[in-house]
């Protein structure tokens, strides 16, 4: 969303920033000395800065008193002498985003810095803190499981610190360590019920630990699920990720803004367009670029088509997870149709590289509208066919209905986003709650589930395909003429920071970019939806049967490119 548009919506309402101002003033009032600044960036987005000692109290207050119940991400920015530690919170009730920033000083060398953990406030902080520990070397004291997550266990350095180059070697060899030559996975300790250990101290060796992956049909990529089994029931589970880690965030710091345009495609290769949008939107907000109306409509059409094909991919893998291979092939068959449209528009099927700052790469080709209408008609018709092997099929219902129930409280507390969160009854959709681009002009529903079970999570995808088809039709009808590319800077992006929020098929995805005016970003943080969803899936697996656990993991639709980045 461009700054002008948000300003124009702000004018229309009486006092659009009233809510944000109240929150800011109440934070100021509660912490007169601890909160240094409290700014309203724009509508539904505010940023506060506080002293490190009071950060936990501010978080607690924000969660309990102000209703910021959803932790989006935790990340850090290295400024050479100190980190900016950033907590991004979201209030599902008030629909406001709150960014809590604090300074953590660090030495010249690559040494660990201690900071109190926030897992006591937000359970979702578990994996985010591990990631920050892994890449920045901030050790969160009191964290239940403080070990690396994206890098290997034997890695000694923290590559997102500025003292490392893009290959992970220290620029000054005295200050840091080079990458290790060994290879050990992040093997966490799996626990057993205390009662069992008391009864039989040697039980540790007699319990089967099964490793699913990293090469396994059900993990959707190189990911490992370690499960401790009691018969067919999982007592404890751990998910090992990082096999596909390329450190996109470090790549972000070593390329110019415009060079980074193709990278979001590789972040999530199943829904590339939405991720391109997330990156482009963040940079546009930072540079104050205005996007022409036609470009916005083209973006909406392409993003919704992208959502359709990504969800079709989910319908395929949902079948695969329960041995329904017919559905698998059907899903891929229909996805091909949408990928053909991608090819028609931008020449590539999977990694389109279509969005540009201030617009798109090229205009829609001739005959695109008719072809798209045909494709969405076909997909809509095929959804009916799908229903016979899926939601109307008794055996499929046996595997999906009432299995893997996630309560709304847990869903929010564990940080779930996207269709999985909505299946638990929380109607959080960025397109509705924090509308970007021209989404406020379209008439569509946000499907919400009742039970939060596998079937609901499955049905969310089916319903969202229908909604996306409706949006595509509306956008094609209203598609305005005009330029498809606005004026945009190529090299120099003004100093500052910005973050975007996009409803990707797997949930809210966002780019947090920091610029100091140079051609390269200081920091490019990718908030992955699948990353936190897999954490939720891991929590849900415990206590489930072996067969159900993998179906549950599947309903969160993990894409390893996005999880590992």
């Amino acid at each position, binding site marked *: 969303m461009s700054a002008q548009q948000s300003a124009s919506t702000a004018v229309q309402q009486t006092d659009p920033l009233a809510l944000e101002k109240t929150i800011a003033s109440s934070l100021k009032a509660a912490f007169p000395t601890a909160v240094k600044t409290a700014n309203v960036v724009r509508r539904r987005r505010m940023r506060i800065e506080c002293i490190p000692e009071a950060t936990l109290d501010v978080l607690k207050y924000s969660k309990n008193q102000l209703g910021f119940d959803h932790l989006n991400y935790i990340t850090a920015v290295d400024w050479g002498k100190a980190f900016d530690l950033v907590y991004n919170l979201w209030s599902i009730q008030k629909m406001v985003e709150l960014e809590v920033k604090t300074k953590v000083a660090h030495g010249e060398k690559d040494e660990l810095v201690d900071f109190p953990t926030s897992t006591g406030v937000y359970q979702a902080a578990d994996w985010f803190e591990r990631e920050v520990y892994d890449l920045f070397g901030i050790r969160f004291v009191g964290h239940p499981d403080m070990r690396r997550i994206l890098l290997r266990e034997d890695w000694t350095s923290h590559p997102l610190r500025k003292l490392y180059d893009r290959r992970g070697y220290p620029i000054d060899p005295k200050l840091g360590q080079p990458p290790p030559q060994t290879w050990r996975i992040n093997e966490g300790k799996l626990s057993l019920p205390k009662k069992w250990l008391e009864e039989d101290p040697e039980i540790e060796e007699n319990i089967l630990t*099964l490793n699913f992956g990293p090469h396994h049909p059900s993990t959707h990529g190189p990911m490992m699920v370690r499960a401790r089994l009691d018969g067919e029931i999982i007592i404890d589970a751990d998910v090992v990720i990082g096999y596909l880690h390329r450190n996109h965030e470090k790549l972000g710091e070593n390329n110019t803004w415009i060079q980074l345009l193709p990278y979001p495609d590789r972040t999530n290769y199943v829904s590339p367009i939405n991720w391109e949008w997330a990156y482009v939107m963040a940079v546009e907000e930072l540079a104050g670029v205005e996007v022409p109306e036609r470009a916005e409509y083209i973006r909406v059409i392409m993003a919704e088509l992208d959502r359709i094909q990504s969800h079709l991919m989910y319908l395929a893998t949902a*079948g695969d997870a329960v*041995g*329904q291979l*017919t559905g698998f092939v059907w899903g891929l068959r229909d996805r091909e149709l949408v990928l053909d449209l991608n090819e028609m528009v931008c020449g590539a099927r999977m990694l389109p590289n279509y969005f540009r700052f201030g617009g798109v790469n090229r205009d829609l080709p001739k005959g695109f509208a008719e072809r798209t209408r045909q494709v969405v008609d076909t997909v809509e018709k095929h959804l009916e066919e799908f229903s016979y092997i899926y939601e109307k099929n008794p*055996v499929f219902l046996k*595997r999906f209905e009432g299995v893997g129930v996630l309560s709304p409280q847990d869903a929010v507390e564990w940080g779930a986003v996207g269709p999985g969160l909505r299946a638990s009854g929380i109607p959080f959709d960025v397109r509705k709650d924090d509308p970007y681009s021209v989404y406020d002009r379209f008439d569509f529903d946000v499907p919400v589930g009742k039970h939060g079970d596998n079937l609901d999570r499955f049905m969310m995808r089916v319903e969202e395909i229908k909604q996306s088809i409706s949006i595509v039709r509306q956008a094609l009808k209203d598609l305005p003429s005009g330029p498809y590319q606005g004026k945009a800077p190529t090299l120099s992006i003004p100093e500052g920071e910005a973050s975007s929020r996009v409803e990707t098929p797997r949930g809210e995805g966002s780019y947090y970019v920091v610029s100091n005016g140079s051609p390269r970003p200081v920091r490019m943080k990718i908030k992955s939806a699948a990353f936190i969803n897999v954490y939720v899936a891991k929590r849900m697996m415990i206590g489930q*049967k072996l*067969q159900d656990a993998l179906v549950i993991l599947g309903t969160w639709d993990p894409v390893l490119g996005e999880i590992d980045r």
Partner: protein
Amino acid sequence: MNTQITLTGIIVFIERNVYLRFLLVAIVAFIIVSIGSLIELYIERKFWARIMSRYGPTEVGKFGTLQLIADAVKFLVKEDFSPAAADKTIYNLVPVFSVTVSFASLLAIPFDYTVASLFPSSLHPLTFVASNFDPSLLVAFGFFALEPLIVLFGGWAAGGKYTLIGGFRSAAQLISYEIPLVLSFLSVVVLAQSLNLFQIIQTQAHSWPFAVLAFPAFITFTVALLAELERTPFDLTEADTELVSGWNTEYGGTKFLLVYLSEYIRAFAGSAILVSLFLGGWLGPAPIPPLIWLFLKTIIVFTVLVWIRAAYPRVRIDQMLALGWRILIPVSAVWLILTPFVAHVAMMHGALA
């Protein structure tokens, strides 16, 4: 004239030697099952592919018919590999036993009669029929029920965790689905008053097919058979998305070929038993040779199994056991108790001879 005398001599010799007769049966059954499993594999790949809106094999041979041969050759020339943790003796023997046992259950199915009936009656074809012995149904099932035990051994001996879980699932499946299977065919035995498959088929010549007379048993038998054949929705022993390939994960090359082949031989045997028990075996209205009838029916039954595979996902292990113990066993047991009365009523109305 001379040749005829010699031929008669040979016939008499074979007739009198029970071992030779069984050897003949074995050869006949081997030829039939070889052709049968090739056709099955082709149907599995082509019919299933069409349901999925794929093409299946197209490149090797006309309509991809030679693809199976190409696959077999590929498996045969692969390295003979065995995992370090495996119990080598059992691990290597399991594929061999698997094929042998699957094949052995075919001996009791009267294929030899259908072949013999192709020859003129002057050769006294019926005297060749070795499968016409009294408890032939029990023999067929005896061999049929051995396979899950071999799967358990195979899973254990391969020394992998996936194979172990697959093997134990198979043991659970064996225990819970053998019972409804036997209870279901017992009601057919009551109707036909014989444990001889030959007799059971002959009885159906003068009565309605047992699929109609013993409809509930037909349904429970089919479901239990699906589980016994370890096919979707009961393919938990090889659940490919959970256990990679289940109990045969660690089997490769020629060993895998044998394991794979034994599955289809078993499927053929199971379908043939189903056809013999419930669908009248070689009997049919049109003047087609009995061999073709039996073969055709068996293949059609198998095609239905493929269809079920295409339409249904896999059930969970506890759901499968619950279906076996709580539904199939009570239904088939109750039906077995009711069968004498049904037989009585059917006889009064001429539906059963």
